[in-house]
């Protein structure tokens, strides 16, 4: 029997809260530092984290003071180390973006506004822990000691690129730092990281795996596979959703009907937290807590890292076509670098002068790394990795049919 027509005939499609020409406004953070308790990481149930999943874990206030049970009490040296990594990330990104505009890279993606995420979280881990990143967590490599020249070699696809020109820029691989290869299809790493952690669990090793997914990509099946497997098998995995509120032009309200991403973990019975992603100390503390759970065999933690994508999605993107443009300046979480500087100054361990000197030193180091890297070639001018690299490492050994095509390719190679 055919249904009768109802009055309301419109499909419900959410709108972004602001678009070009609008003045962006954000609700202020509801939680202050100290509002949320720090449960014992061992034996913490998912339901004990309900307030954390709907609230926001904070340590730093907007005057630069740290307080509350989540204060990780880092030493000034540790804080300065975190700051240096973040400053390096930002300067590195700016340099790469300039090189992209001159054709030395085909493409680039900055971490602008989100530098604290990978850096604070990786610093909270042990060096044996696995990192399964997206393209927005290259900063983890600085923490793990990767040489910038090597990173630039990859981005500009020259003969020294460790992935041999096969992947687009920013798709880093750094096995020595236990930083697993970045892949373009969004979300895939999230469930794979659960498998990495299950292997650690199987081998009874003291190591965990940290991974990230975007607010947008958490709509992929992989997000749900990850939480479900993590819930069932309880492997040592830290599952982060970086809610930077934009997936290219798509606002987070199209990724989920639940405005709090963290809360979705509760339904999987996985302890879940929402944390200020521009608060270096809160991020560090929550990650440390998750690592303690993982190390104790308590299984996964699900973390929503609340931040704002201050820049474009990538060098191919023009956000002025879909959002106001300066709205990140109104983001209540502010800027992660400025906030850590403010804290260090507030505790008498840093000054404007020192910050300026740091920026100048790091800028010089980035420039020197860039100058060295281009001596090995770049995308605009070559030399590139040999075209032979098309055929190597497809399999462990080259099968006959690839060998035949490889021989054929050599006759025509343009490189």
């Amino acid at each position: 029997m055919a249904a009768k027509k109802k009055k309301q005939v419109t499909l419900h499609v959410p709108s972004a809260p602001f678009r070009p020409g609008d003045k962006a406004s954000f609700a202020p953070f509801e939680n202050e530092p100290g509002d949320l308790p720090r449960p014992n990481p061992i034996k913490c149930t998912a339901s004990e984290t309900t307030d954390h999943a709907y609230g926001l874990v904070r340590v730093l206030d907007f005057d630069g003071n740290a307080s509350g049970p989540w204060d990780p009490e880092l030493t000034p040296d540790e804080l300065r180390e975190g700051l240096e990594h973040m400053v390096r990330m930002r300067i590195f990104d700016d340099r790469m973006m300039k090189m992209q505009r001159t054709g030395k890279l085909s493409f680039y993606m900055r971490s602008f506004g989100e530098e604290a995420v990978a850096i604070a979280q990786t610093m909270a881990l042990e060096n044996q822990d696995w990192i399964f990143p997206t393209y927005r967590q290259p900063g983890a490599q600085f923490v793990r000691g990767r040489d910038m020249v090597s990173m630039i070699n990859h981005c500009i696809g020259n003969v020294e690129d460790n992935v041999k020109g096969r992947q687009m820029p920013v798709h880093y691989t750094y096995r020595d730092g236990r930083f697993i290869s970045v892949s373009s299809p969004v979300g895939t790493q999230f469930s794979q990281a659960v498998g990495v952690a299950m292997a650690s669990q199987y081998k009874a090793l003291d190591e965990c795996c940290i991974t990230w997914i975007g607010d947008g990509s958490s709509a992929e099946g992989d997000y749900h596979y990850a939480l479900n497997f993590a819930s069932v098998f309880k492997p040592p995995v830290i599952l982060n959703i970086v809610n930077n509120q934009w997936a290219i032009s798509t606002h987070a309200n199209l990724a989920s009907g639940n405005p709090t991403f963290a809360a979705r973990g509760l339904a999987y019975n996985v302890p879940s937290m929402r944390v200020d992603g521009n608060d270096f100390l809160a991020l560090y503390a929550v990650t440390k807590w998750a690592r303690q759970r993982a190390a104790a065999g308590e299984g996964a933690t699900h973390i929503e890292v609340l931040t704002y994508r201050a820049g474009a999605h990538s060098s191919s993107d023009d956000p002025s076509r879909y959002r106001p443009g300066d709205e990140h300046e109104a983001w209540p979480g502010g800027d992660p670098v400025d906030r850590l500087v403010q804290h260090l100054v507030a505790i008498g361990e840093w000054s404007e002068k020192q910050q300026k000197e740091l920026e100048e030193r790091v800028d010089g180091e980035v420039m020197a790394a860039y100058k060295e890297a281009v001596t090995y070639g770049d995308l605009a001018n070559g030399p590139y990795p040999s075209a032979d690299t098309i055929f190597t490492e497809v399999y462990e050994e080259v099968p006959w049919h690839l060998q035949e095509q490889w021989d054929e390719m050599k006759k025509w190679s343009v490189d």
Partner: protein
Amino acid sequence: MPEMNIVQAVNSALDIMLEKDPDVIFFGEDAGYFGGVFRTSDGLQEKHGKHRVFDTPLSEGGIAAIAFGMGINGLRPVAEIQFADYIFPAYDQIVNEIAKVRHRSGGEFWCPLTIRTPAGGGIRGGHHHSQSPESQFTHTSGINVVYTSTPYNSKGLLISAIESNDPVVVFEPKRCYRGPFYGDPHNVPTWKDHPEAEVPEAHYTVPLGKARLAMEGTECTVISWGAMVHVSEQAIKNCGISCDLIDLQTLVPWDKDAIIKSIEKTGRCVIVHEAPKTSGFGAEMAASVQERCFYHLEAPIERVTGWDTPFPHTTEWDYMPSPARIADAIMKTMEE
């Protein structure tokens, strides 16, 4: 007649179908407000409303599944998958569900949906913004597979796909969105003054299942689709052999009559595609040509394809078939 590039031609096809048929709706990632990362739906949400042109969650499996549900409930959905490389989360829905629903339900349900997706290399897209996965769909009965090459056929074939009561997967050659590609990465022409860029404003169709004779000749038949049609054209010009160049346009069902007629005339056949060789659609073409035209063949059939490897980033010009490789294959058929 107005001149359009492929982006404008696709936009025009969508616009016309949204205007013409209230059951047509269009959706995809960044496809609504923003108008698509390649701008193919620019302005359509504003014109036709948010309930008819909208953004979806980043969920290709979900996109294909809701398109299926809408299709069996009387709508004529058109879904965009942002890059063909990202169609695989939707593969289960397409292969096991969309392709089989008419058959499995004894004809009681069917799914008139269209999935369109930019495919192919030449944009420095590396492994995951360059693949040409058409043969992963031609291997499944119950869906038709289209691969466009020009503004004219991109519009006409898309309209045919939307009007078809069967599901159709339409691949669009993203390297050719704003101009044809002749195999020289440093030469970036626009569609300006290209005869296939003359595109009527109004509704028209290019029928599914019909090939286009892009060049006419006598000595050899070159069969291709997508961006490789233009690279083949360049190769034919370079080698000076008189060739039929058949732009297949629809891979399933392919145009048997056009192929047989041409091979019976030329007696030689070269198949060109940028997807890898093994189990590529060229294998199907080669087998079919020898089944149907064996006694007309003067020489073994040649295939020029991408290599059986992942698609590279910096060395993509060594991966994609070049005019030189295609010309060499044509000359080989002439040696017999």
